[in-house]
């Protein structure tokens, strides 16, 4: 398709509008006299964004194809991300946000809340910015890679003299010998150095490492895959991040799933002090292993939430740090523990006057029984249980949380001697008899029931394989771009003169060394400086 805007080069080739260097011979097409040779970055191809800006589609396209716009977007996102860390986000505070921010952080906190920074990372504008970066990534790449691919696919052999002279590596040699053997020798030297050589008449071109030019674009494809994979978390069921505390012996619902997990045993193992290297200053013992022996159950009665679970064992595993329990797409990570938590008080009931132990009884801190038979004719009745005991301002006993942090029981001992019951308070390690009269019964604490509580992180991350794959593609692109260079060397016989020009996208020194060595093979000596017209 030829249009009126296309540019015809003096060599006869028709180039698309916007082309800087003729696709066939490399002659600069838009250069006025005295102007610099155009930048070789994209081989002087016509890039859409540099050529059209008439329609709205052009304008949107051009906006996103600008690397400067991309960098500005990235800087804005960086700044926003920094702002999001000034105060904790809403999910990390407790209590109503409209109160907490002003109370805790003063006027700055109030502004922070009013501007909506308390939910910054999930705000529509933050996500929009991220997506704009993604869009820019796609369009920047397309705008460059499509024409670049087209330009590099053809490898014209003979290039215009002004193209040769315009290169950062250029030299010419006068020749008095036969052309053919010299040309043969140059071709051999290039081939030996791994160049793919094309010869046309008295012109040669050698090229290697072209694939490294695709590195940045493959890298971008990888980044886009990672962005898409992260966005897949938004699909219901793809992502779960919860936490459960499970006591030893307890079976608990795994939050957000239909599974139940039983903590059979929690172990904390230590290094033998003799194994710790000398000179290493450690306080106390050094932990070697945190481990939960767990059983995973599936609840067959999950259709009705809250219904008595119908549990079927599906998996059994030892959960250690970085070695999660894996079942289908569910992951349970070892990520916390509370050791030696008192779960029940063991108490001996004592007849004070007779100094006689009537019998032992147990007060469970989680599910206490309301009546406990201690002996044939003696019963302990639990009248009140405050899990987290405190006195209110009106001197009323109450619990300030449902967790047994400071358990307090009111019990009544009923026996033939005390038919109406004798009341006492039982706290963690102390008791308080009722003030009226001499008490008949006393209490002696024996070793309480203790259990370790394990903290398990609950994760579902179905997009993880995609994130790994995307990251692999990113790495592939980086390696391609970093460790290989695209080098081209053009050689042209013009009368009694050999013109040599070379181009690379990086490592100019390496390229000059190769040109130097190739010239040495035809007994021409050129110093690196003589081959340096520019380029780093």
């Amino acid at each position: 398709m030829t249009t009126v805007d296309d540019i015809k080069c003096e060599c006869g080739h028709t180039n698309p509008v916007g082309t800087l260097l003729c696709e066939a011979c490399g002659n600069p097409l838009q250069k006025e006299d005295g102007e610099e040779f155009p930048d070789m970055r994209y081989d002087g191809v016509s890039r859409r964004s540099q050529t059209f800006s008439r329609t709205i589609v052009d304008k949107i396209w051009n906006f996103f194809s600008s690397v400067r716009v991309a960098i500005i977007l990235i800087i804005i996102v960086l700044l926003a991300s920094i702002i999001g860390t000034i105060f904790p986000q809403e999910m990390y505070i407790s209590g109503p946000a409209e109160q907490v921010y002003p109370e805790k952080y003063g006027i700055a906190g109030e502004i922070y809340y009013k501007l909506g920074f308390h939910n910054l990372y999930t705000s529509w504008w933050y996500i929009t910015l991220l997506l704009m970066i993604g869009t820019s990534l796609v369009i920047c790449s397309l705008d460059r890679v499509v024409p670049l691919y087209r330009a590099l696919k053809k490898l014209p052999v003979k290039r215009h003299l002004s193209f040769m002279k315009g290169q950062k590596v250029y030299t010419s040699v006068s020749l008095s010998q036969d052309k053919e053997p010299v040309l043969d020798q140059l071709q051999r030297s290039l081939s030996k150095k791994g160049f793919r050589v094309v010869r046309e008449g008295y012109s040669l071109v050698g090229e290697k490492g072209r694939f490294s030019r695709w590195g940045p674009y493959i890298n971008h494809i990888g980044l886009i895959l990672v962005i898409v994979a992260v966005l897949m978390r938004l699909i219901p069921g793809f992502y779960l991040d919860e936490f459960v505390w499970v006591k030893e012996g307890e079976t608990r619902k795994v939050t957000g799933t239909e599974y139940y997990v039983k903590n059979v045993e929690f172990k904390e193992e230590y290094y033998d002090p003799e194994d710790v290297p000398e000179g290493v200053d450690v306080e106390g013992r050094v932990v070697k292993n945190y481990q939960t022996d767990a059983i995973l159950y599936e609840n067959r009665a999950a259709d009705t939430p809250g219904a008595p679970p119908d549990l079927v064992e599906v998996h059994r595993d030892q959960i250690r740090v970085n070695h999660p329990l894996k079942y289908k797409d569910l992951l349970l990570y070892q990520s916390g523990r509370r050791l030696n938590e008192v779960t029940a008080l063991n108490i001996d009931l004592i007849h004070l006057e007779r100094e006689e132990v009537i019998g032992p009884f147990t007060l469970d801190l989680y599910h206490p029984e309301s009546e406990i038979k201690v002996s044939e004719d003696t019963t302990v009745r639990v009248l009140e249980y405050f899990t987290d005991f405190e006195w209110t301002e009106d001197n009323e006993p109450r619990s300030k949380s449902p967790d047994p942090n400071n358990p307090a029981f009111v019990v009544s001992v009923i026996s033939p001697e005390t038919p109406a019951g004798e009341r006492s308070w039982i706290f963690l390690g102390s008791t308080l008899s009722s003030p009226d009269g001499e008490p008949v019964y006393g209490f002696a604490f024996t070793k309480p029931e203790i259990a370790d509580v394990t903290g398990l992180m609950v994760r579902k991350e179905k997009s993880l394989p995609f994130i790994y794959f995307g990251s692999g593609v990113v790495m592939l692109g980086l390696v391609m771009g970093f460790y290989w260079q695209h080098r081209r060397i053009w050689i042209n016989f013009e009368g009694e003169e050999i013109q040599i020009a070379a181009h690379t996208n990086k490592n100019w020194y390496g390229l000059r060394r190769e040109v130097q060595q190739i010239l040495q093979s035809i007994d021409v000596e050129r110093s690196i400086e003589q081959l340096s017209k520019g380029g780093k």
Partner: protein
Amino acid sequence: MINKNPIVRIVILALILIAAGWAVYQSAIKDKQTIEEGTAAPNFMLPLLGGGSMQLENLRGQGVVLNFWGTWCDPCRKEMPALDQVHNKYKDRDVQVLAVNIGESDVTVSRFVEQYQLSFPVLMDKQSEITALYEIGPIPTTFFIDGEGVVRRIVIGGPMSEQTIEQYIQEILPE
């Protein structure tokens, strides 16, 4: 031959726009509660304090006042007498008051119920499963559910007065 036809670019831009729009939309609705006024109240089954169990579905045809509470929560305690009054007033008019206790022991709750002389059923959510299902944040939180099982009103915080509760009950009173 650079293609000046904008169709390819329009398609690319449109695809990106659709993907981006979908992502923004998803993230915007992600934070929202899934139970709100006008949506169906999820069914559940819980044991009753003192034995037996109850399923929400079985109360279809009746209005339900579903209150989430704990004895450690002051406004919850203050609200209980009003809920009890309302329960006695409306129990013959097909409105059921249900109080879901969050994770406490039978002893603690039964002493509380005795002390306050509460006559409505108390459900024991020992593992806080239903509390999570109903996305309970601060307590008390009360759901007013109509005879069709649709949440008509959600009241977060309290205590509500007897008048307030009665006023909201009018919205769920079966014909």
